[in-house]
């Protein structure tokens, strides 16, 4: 092997070779600089902003005050609670719906596997906003579902309403992030060596035992990825709460959005954003530890 390289390599390292030695750094620099400038730097700026006081007119000055943080934690209990409850509920619902679907496609999909997968990701081919508007139509007081139940079947009172309630927000969140739950779980399940399941059966494991002791533990990395991919956007979302909810169902994302876009109270909006991000990172870390899949996140 070495001999071949010596014969074909010119004795003097060419310019190309010298450039090749620097190649990884040349390849990395532009993209990493972009992330440094437009991801890390903004986060640092936001941290400074959260420690500032002032208004848009007088300018913001870093005073080291922690008022924004104490406000963020004390004044918005309802909205933090809503985020946690709506985000958590929709993540759990997504898991309960998504796992059987991922399992069925992975193990019983047969030749329809790709078609089924395609239908799972089909919502991605439409706009997130338009999908949410479709839910507005579907859940409307005189929309297809309620009109049918109210007038055709007559099993619901005429003034029954779902839209603008927590149920509507949770159903929107559950819907919008379901594919994020199914795909990673499908990938994990699909990779499982079928012989392991056969071995479990040969060793007199019942199908339930095989599932609980072999299939599910092997699918855990997918469950982990799916739940965090669902929980993070659901927790930080404000579009579903805005279009399908009411002022009572405002989530922490709505507060951040409102403080940034309407009241220009940047310090408190920054503190809220940082706490949201930190809270999610801590939750993910605890969850990873509980599941014992730390090494799979990196």
């Amino acid at each position: 092997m070495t001999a071949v390289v010596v014969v074909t390599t010119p004795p003097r390292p060419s310019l190309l070779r010298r450039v090749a030695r620097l190649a990884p750094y040349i390849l990395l620099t532009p993209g990493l600089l972009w992330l440094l400038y437009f991801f890390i730097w903004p986060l640092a700026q936001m941290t400074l902003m959260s420690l500032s006081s002032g208004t848009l007119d007088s300018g913001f000055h870093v005073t080291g005050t922690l008022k924004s943080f104490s406000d963020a934690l004390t004044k918005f209990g309802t909205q933090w609670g809503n985020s946690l409850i709506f985000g958590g509920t929709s993540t759990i619902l997504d898991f309960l719906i998504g796992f059987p679907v991922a399992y069925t496609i992975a193990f019983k999909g047969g030749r329809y596997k790709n078609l089924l997968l395609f239908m799972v990701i089909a919502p991605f081919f439409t706009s997130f906003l338009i999908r949410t508007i479709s839910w507005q139509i579907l859940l409307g007081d005189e929309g297809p579902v309620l009109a049918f139940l109210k007038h055709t079947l007559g099993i619901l009172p005429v003034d029954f309403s779902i839209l603008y309630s927590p149920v509507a927000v949770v159903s929107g969140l559950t819907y919008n992030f379901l594919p994020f739950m199914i795909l990673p779980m499908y990938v994990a399940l699909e990779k499982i060596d079928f012989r392991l399941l056969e071995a479990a059966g040969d060793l007199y494991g019942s199908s339930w035992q095989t599932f609980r002791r072999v299939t599910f533990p092997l699918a855990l990395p997918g469950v982990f990825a799916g739940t965090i991919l669902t929980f993070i956007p659901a927790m930080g979302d404000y579009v579903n709460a805005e279009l399908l909810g009411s002022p009572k169902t405002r989530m922490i994302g709505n507060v951040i959005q409102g403080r940034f876009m309407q009241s220009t109270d940047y310090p408190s909006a920054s503190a809220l954003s940082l706490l949201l991000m930190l809270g999610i990172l801590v939750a993910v870390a605890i969850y990873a530890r509980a599941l014992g899949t730390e090494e799979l996140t990196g």
Partner: protein
Amino acid sequence: MTSAATTYARTRTNAPVGRRVGRAIGRRFLPVFTALAIGYLLIPIVVMILFSFNDYQGKFNFIWNGFTLKAWEAPLAWPGLPEALKLSLTIAALSTLFATLLGTMIGLALTRYSFRGRGLINGLIFLPMASPEIVLGASLLTLFINISLGAGITPPGLGFLPKTALSLGFTTILIAHIMFNISYVVVTVKARLSGFDRRLEEAAMDLGANEWMTFWKVTFPLIFPGILAAALLAFSLSIDDFVITNFVSGTSLTFPMWVYSVIRNALPAQINVIGSAIFLVAVGGVALATLIQGRAPRLAR
């Protein structure tokens, strides 16, 4: 077939109750449940397409009132819509181009060279995907506001730009879209490269090709499907993005921003028409790619 039959016979006679319940779940419950779940995923799409043909009364396309082709005959007939669509397509094309280039370069560096700080770089790639979109948008807005106010600490180099260069609009949207797309491109390209057989490159080098020729004649054609998948993913993420764009767009309206601004006062069927058209083009593209390649659509990974 025979063995399956005997297994079946055996379980019929002396299997414990648990196993029989398990089998019933596998045979009947799971397929029905999956069909229902997929129906749930597809219903809003059906509603979107159906209501693009709705002959609705008044301003809001909420209640079914009969079939018409009105909206499809004038798909752009709403003030601001053509401009918004054009802006979205331009931003999507440009951000896809840059993000795919930058992301592929990082993906290549991470999979084929060893150097210090790899863990740190992987973390830097992972973090934007693990952050809530609202935080990405809000922090970028903070940066841009600080720059325009001359406050905070401007990143080195950006201070030379005129203050208005980063005022909210086209440039800031593009910057944001490139930023959030890079990580997705890196992950997609890396997935393709990880199964790459390095011996093919060694063979090319043994046959006298230099690095440059080897890259373009061997490496690039082999990883091209991965790059293409990454580019398609980046394009669809960009054209659909609302949350981050909402923070950094100022008064510019991309298509999702335009939809958001319109739906307070009206719900024109044109929204459904454009949504359906994008959906059909995307589905057609995937179907075509699947036919050509004869493999599964894996765009969403």
